[in-house]
C-alpha cells in the first residue's frame, strides 16, 4: 500500500460522497413528486401511460405492479435474445442465444444482477445490448429505487395504507434521474476513449503483420447505466477491465463514483423524507465504514502479492498482478472491487478469481453480508433498513423499551418478516452451493481444484443470490445446471427478499409515528452505527464462517504453507 494509493481512494470516495448530497436531494424531490419545472412534462408522460400519480397503492398492489412489470420485462428480453439472429442491428451476424443461456441472462438483467454466462463481444448483437440488456439496466435499477421510495414513505407516514404509485415512481426515476445521469456520464466516457458506434469492429494490421479484429459498438451509454444503476453487466466479456470499457484510471474512478452515488444518496434521501437527516447519515456512515474496511482488506492483500510467485522470482513491488491490467493500480482496483461487490454492481476492473485468497474473501463476504454496504440502487437502502429494524429490536430490549425505529414500533410482525428476508440469502447461497459441491455435473464447471474451487462455486451462488453479478470467472457458468440454478438464486435473492420487505413497509406505514422522547433510543449516534455494523456482521455473516473456512481461509493457510492445487 502506498500513500498515493490512499490519496486516490480518499479523493474518489470523497467525490462520490459530495455528489451523493445533490443526488439524494433530487431523489427526495422525485419521491415526493416535487418536480419543479419538469412537472408539466412528467404529468403528460404519466397521463399518456394511463398513470395517475396521486392514486397510491397499498403494499400488495405495489408489489404486484412491480412483479408484473418484471415478468413482462423478462418475456420481452428473453424473446429478444432468442430472436437475435433475425432482429436488426446485428452487424456481427450473431445467432439467437440458446434457451438456457437466454433464460439465465434475461433473469439476470431483470433482477439487477447482471450475471453473465456469455461474453458480450462474442455473443450479443448491438440490438440485444442496446434495446434488450441496457433497457433492463435502467428498469431494474428504477424498480429498486421505487421500492426504496415505498419503504421510505412507510417510515415517514403514519396511519396510512398507501406506499405510493409504482408506475409513477419507476417512470420518474428513469426519466429524471437515470437517463440524464447516463447521458452525461456516457459522454464523459466517450471523451475518455469508450467507443459509441454502430460499427461492429475494425480490422487492424499489426506491426507484426498479423490481423487483429477489434470489436466495439455502442458501449459508452450502456457502460454509464451499468454503473449508475449498479447493474454491472459488461458490454465485453472482461467487463470494465476491457480497455474499451475501462480505458483509464480516471474512467475507472468515474465508474466507482457512479456505482455508489445513488446508494449513498438514497441514505440522505431517507433522512430528508423522514425528517431527520442524521438518520440517513448514520446509515451512510455504516456503509462507508464497511467500504473503507473492505478496501483496506483487499488493498493490503493484493498489494502484498502472492508469496508463491514471489518465491518463484517475481518482484513483490507491484503486488499480485495476475488478472489485473496495469493502468488502474492496486488502490483503485481495491476500491473498485470493494464498491462493486458492496454495491451489488458486479462490474469488475480486476479479476477477483485471481486475487489472493484473503483479497478474494473480502468481496465474497461483502456480498454475503446482504448487499447493503452500500448495496444496489434502492435494494441497498431497504436491505440495510431491515438490519436496522433488527438492530433496533435488540437494542430496544437492552434499554428496556418496546423497540421503535423512527417512531415506528418494531413488533412480532416486523421481526418475523425481517427474519424471513434475512433467511433468504443464507438458504439460497449455502443450500445451492452445498448441493452443487456434491454434484459431479456442477463440479465439472470448476476451473480450479482445492479450496479455490470451493470458493468459485460459493462465489457464484453468493453473487447470484446477492444480485451482484461479479464472478470468480474461472467457473464455466454456461451449463444447464448453473444457468438454471443461478437464475433461481437471482430470482429468490431479488423477489423473495422484496416481498417481506414490502410487507414490512405496509405494516409500518399503518402504524402511527410515536414522538421521540428522551427514553427513545437514538438511532443516529456512533453507538447505533456500531451496533448496526455488529448486527450486520452477526446476522448477515456468522453463518458463512464455516464455508469461508473451507474456501478462502483454507486456501490462505495452504498458500502460506506453499501448497498448490
Amino acid at each position, binding site marked *: 500500500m502506498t500513500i498515493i494509493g490512499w*490519496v486516490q481512494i480518499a479523493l474518489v470516495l470523497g467525490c462520490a460522497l459530495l455528489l451523493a448530497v445533490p443526488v439524494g436531494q433530487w431523489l427526495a424531490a422525485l419521491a415526493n413528486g416535487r418536480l419543479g419545472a419538469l412537472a408539466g412534462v412528467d404529468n403528460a408522460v404519466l397521463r*399518456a401511460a394511463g398513470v395517475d400519480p396521486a392514486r397510491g397503492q397499498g403494499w400488495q398492489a405495489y408489489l404486484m405492479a412491480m412483479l408484473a*412489470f418484471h415478468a413482462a420485462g423478462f418475456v420481452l428480453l428473453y424473446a429478444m435474445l432468442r430472436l437475435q439472429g433475425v432482429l436488426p442491428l446485428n452487424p456481427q451476424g450473431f445467432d439467437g442465444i440458446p434457451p438456457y443461456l437466454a433464460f439465465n441472462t434475461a433473469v439476470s438483467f431483470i433482477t439487477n444482477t447482471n450475471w453473465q454466462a456469455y461474453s458480450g*463481444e462474442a455473443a450479443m448483437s448491438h440490438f440485444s445490448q442496446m434495446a434488450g440488456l441496457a433497457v433492463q439496466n435502467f428498469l431494474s435499477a428504477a424498480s429498486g429505487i421505487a421500492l426504496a421510495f415505498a419503504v421510505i414513505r412507510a417510515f415517514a407516514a403514519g396511519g396510512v395504507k398507501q406506499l405510493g404509485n409504482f408506475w409513477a415512481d419507476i417512470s420518474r426515476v428513469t426519466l429524471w434521474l437515470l437517463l440524464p445521469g447516463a447521458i452525461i456520464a456516457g459522454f464523459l466516457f466517450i471523451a475518455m476513449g469508450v467507443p459509441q458506434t454502430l460499427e461492429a469492429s475494425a480490422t487492424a494490421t499489426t506491426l507484426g503483420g*498479423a490481423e487483429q479484429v477489434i470489436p466495439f459498438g455502442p458501449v459508452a451509454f450502456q457502460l454509464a447505466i451499468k454503473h449508475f444503476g449498479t447493474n454491472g453487466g459488461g458490454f465485453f466479456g472482461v467487463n470494465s477491465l476491457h480497455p474499451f470499457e475501462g480505458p483509464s484510471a480516471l474512467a475507472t474512478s468515474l465508474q466507482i463514483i457512479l456505482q455508489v452515488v445513488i446508494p449513498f444518496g438514497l441514505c440522505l434521501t431517507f433522512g430528508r423524507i423522514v425528517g431527520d437527516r442524521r438518520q440517513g447519515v448514520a446509515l451512510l456512515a455504516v456503509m462507508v465504514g464497511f467500504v473503507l474496511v473492505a478496501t483496506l482488506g483487499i488493498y493490503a492483500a493484493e498489494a502484498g502479492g502472492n508469496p508463491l510467485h514471489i518465491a518463484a522470482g517475481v518482484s513483490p513491488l507491484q503486488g499480485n498482478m495476475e488478472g489485473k491490467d*496495469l493502468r488502474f493500480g492496486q488502490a483503485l482496483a481495491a476500491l473498485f472491487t470493494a464498491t462493486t461487490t458492496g454495491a451489488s454492481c458486479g462490474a469488475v476492473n480486476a479479476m477477483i478469481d485471481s486475487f489472493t485468497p484473503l483479497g478474494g474473501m473480502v468481496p465474497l463476504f461483502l456480498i454475503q453480508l446482504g448487499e447493503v454496504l452500500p448495496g444496489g440502487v434502492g435494494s441497498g437502502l431497504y436491505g440495510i433498513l431491515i438490519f436496522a429494524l433488527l438492530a433496533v429490536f435488540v437494542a430496544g430490549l437492552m434499554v428496556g423499551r418496546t423497540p421503535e425505529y423512527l417512531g415506528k414500533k418494531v413488533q412480532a410482525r416486523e421481526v418475523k418478516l425481517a427474519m424471513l428476508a434475512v433467511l433468504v440469502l443464507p438458504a439460497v447461497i449455502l443450500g445451492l452451493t452445498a448441493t452443487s459441491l456434491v454434484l459431479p455435473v456442477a463440479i465439472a464447471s470448476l476451473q480450479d481444484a482445492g479450496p*479455490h474451487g470451493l470458493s468459485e462455486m460459493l462465489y457464484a451462488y453468493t453473487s447470484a443470490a446477492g444480485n451482484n453479478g461479479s464472478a470468480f470467472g474461472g467457473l464455466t457458468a454456461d451449463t444447464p445446471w448453473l444457468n438454471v440454478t443461478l437464475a433461481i438464486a437471482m430470482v429468490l435473492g431479488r423477489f423473495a427478499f422484496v416481498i417481506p420487505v414490502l410487507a414490512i413497509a405496509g405494516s409500518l406505514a399503518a402504524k402511527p409515528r410515536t414522538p421521540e422522547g428522551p427514553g427513545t433510543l437514538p438511532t443516529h449516534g456512533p453507538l447505533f452505527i456500531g451496533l448496526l455494523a455488529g448486527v450486520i456482521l452477526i446476522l448477515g455473516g456468522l453463518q458463512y464462517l464455516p464455508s469461508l473456512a473451507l474456501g478462502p481461509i483454507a486456501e490462505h493457510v495452504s498458500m502460506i504453507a506453499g501448497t498448490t492445487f
Partner: protein
Amino acid sequence: MLRPLLSLLLGFTLLLGVAVPLGMTFVAGAVMPGQAGGSLIRRDGQVVGSALIGQNFSDDRFFQGRPSATSAAPYDATSSAASQLGPTSAALLTAVTERVAGGRDVPADAATASGSGLDPHISPENARAQVPRVATARSLPPARVLALVEQAVEGRELGLFGEPRVNVLRLNLALEVQSQAVAQGTPGGAAPVPR
C-alpha cells in the same frame, strides 16, 4: 395495470434502447469521432491497431506486452479473457515460473497475465528490462532505445490516478520510426512517441 405496464415497458424500450443510444452515437460520431470510433491508430492511412488495445508482439525486435490469456491466440480482441487462475493454482505457478525464467525480482506485470488479455501497457521497469534484447535485435544503441522508453513513460493521470506505464504499441511505433531513421541514415534524434 396493463396499460401503464405496456406503455412504460415498450415506451422505455424505444426511448432508452433505440432513440437515446442512436442519438448519442450520432452526436459522438460528430464531436469525438476518434474516441467514439475506438481510438484507432493509423500509419500511412492504414489502421495498425487501437491505442487502447494491446497487440501480440512475439518478435524480439519489439517490446512485448504482458502475457495474455485470450483463448485462440494471445491478444485476440474478439474474445477478451483473463486466465482466471486462482492464487494457489499449480498451473499458474508453472506459467509464472516459466515466464520468470530463473530471473530475480522480475516485474510482476511481465510474469502474470493481464485481466483483459488486451492490456496495452507494461510497467516502465518491464520496458527497461526489455531494452537490451530489443536493442540487440535491432542493432540499435541501447541508450537510444532506453531514451525511447523513458520518453514513452506515461505518468499517473492528472499526476495522481493510476500507475506510471508504457503503451507498448506506441513505443513500438516510435521504435519503428527510429529504426527506419537509422536505416535511412538520418540520425535525426528520436522520433516522438505518438500520443
